[in-house]
């Protein structure tokens, strides 16, 4: 082939590629198209295998778990009693708080609906540079971008990309994840940054004069507009104060065991943020 033709072909190809890339960055049409086609087909292929795997594991576990079932039952009964007692106290406090909020004229918080989802894969493919998991819920079931995702232990992340029946969840450990938090006991505000898989989370913008203790649980503050208030996120592992800085150097560990996640909960807002605005008008 003529080298001149090859060079023209390469330059033209590069030009077309860059035009396509920038157009897609602005419009997102190609990304959406690949999400609806590629992501959903990956889900369709992985879901039956996952289902079989889970059923097989359940079947085996059911027999293994029979060993020591009595002792486990007694321990669980004791735990249920303790939880009932705690629940009773907390219900009283919650009702008292609701009464005080009503007296002070606080608007009702937006309601959230929970929906279970199964984890069908961790990262898939060569472009999976982000810390993500795939779940078997998509736009058909109302799971849209930025839907909060949690487990029984705490916050897992939020939906990053939603296909029709499958969604990609951006984990709280990803470096592009940011969650606004407060300390559960001392109410010191900060923002939790992910630092990558297996790394500690970093809590930024915690004021130098704030009170935050090692071991304190960080809960969502609701200030980021994504997560509702009060969901547990991480446990503080170290707090350092250095002279000459405005903020403390805080590290935390996620409460969720991400590599072993099998089921998660999606939190869907019953009222849209646009509706919620009316409360303030």
């Amino acid at each position, binding site marked *: 082939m003529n080298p001149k033709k090859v060079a023209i072909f390469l330059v033209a190809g590069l030009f077309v590629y860059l035009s396509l890339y920038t157009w897609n*960055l602005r419009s997102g049409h190609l990304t959406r198209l690949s999400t609806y086609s590629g992501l959903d087909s990956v889900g369709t292929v992985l879901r039956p295998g996952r289902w079989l795997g889970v059923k097989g594991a359940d079947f085996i576990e059911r027999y293994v778990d029979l060993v020591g079932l009595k002792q486990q039952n007694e321990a669980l009964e004791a735990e249920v009693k303790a939880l009932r007692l705690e629940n009773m106290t907390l219900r009283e406090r919650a009702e008292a708080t609701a009464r005080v909020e009503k007296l002070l004229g606080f608007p009702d918080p937006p309601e959230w609906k929970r929906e279970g989802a199964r984890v069908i894969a961790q990262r898939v493919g060569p472009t999976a*540079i982000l810390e993500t998991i*795939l779940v078997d819920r998509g736009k058909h079931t109302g799971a849209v971008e930025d839907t909060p995702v949690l487990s029984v232990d705490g916050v897992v992340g939020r939906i990053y990309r939603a296909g029709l029946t499958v969604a990609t969840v951006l984990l709280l450990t990803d470096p592009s994840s940011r969650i606004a938090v407060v300390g559960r006991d001392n109410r010191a505000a900060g923002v939790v940054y992910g630092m990558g898989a297996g790394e500690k989370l970093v809590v930024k913008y915690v004021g130098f004069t704030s009170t935050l203790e090692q071991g304190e649980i960080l809960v969502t503050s609701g200030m980021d507009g994504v997560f509702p208030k009060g969901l547990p996120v991480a446990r503080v592992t170290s707090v350092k104060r250095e002279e000459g800085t405005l903020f403390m150097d805080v590290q935390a560990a996620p409460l969720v065991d991400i590599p072993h996640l099998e089921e998660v909960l999606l939190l869907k807002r019953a009222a849209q943020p646009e509706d919620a605005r009316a409360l303030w008008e």
Partner: protein
Amino acid sequence: MLAALWWIAFTVCGIWGQMLVPGVDFFAPGMTISLRWQRPPVTIALTLIWMAIQEGAGGLAFGYGILWYATLFLLLTVGRWLLDPGSLQFQALLGVALGLAHFFLLYLMAVLEMRAFPVKRVLLECLLQILIYPALWYAAENLFPERLKRHEESA
């Protein structure tokens, strides 16, 4: 019909492979085989499907797949002039080139999207790509039905 079934089975296995070994492209050997033995429209259709899968399941904006498969196409086209495309040595060299290409392309896309680039993890994925590509090619090439091979003299 046999070709469609074979490629569907290959794609399904590829998706499962990519789920088990994240960061590695299991479809690249398929493109090599398709380019060698199938008609160009088949290769184009397969590449578009695989590109949609890679882009949809991945975390970056659309763009990596085009560069990735274009690089593979260029490497195969240039390499075919110099070496025998049916030899394992050539495919092993191609695996090394793909491993390096994966690093540079991913770095480029991460910079363009201003994403964090996990160097250690990507380097490990490159190494896996280098090792897995020739092995997969060898297995798929031997499993590819003789009936579907479009030999140049008959084409």
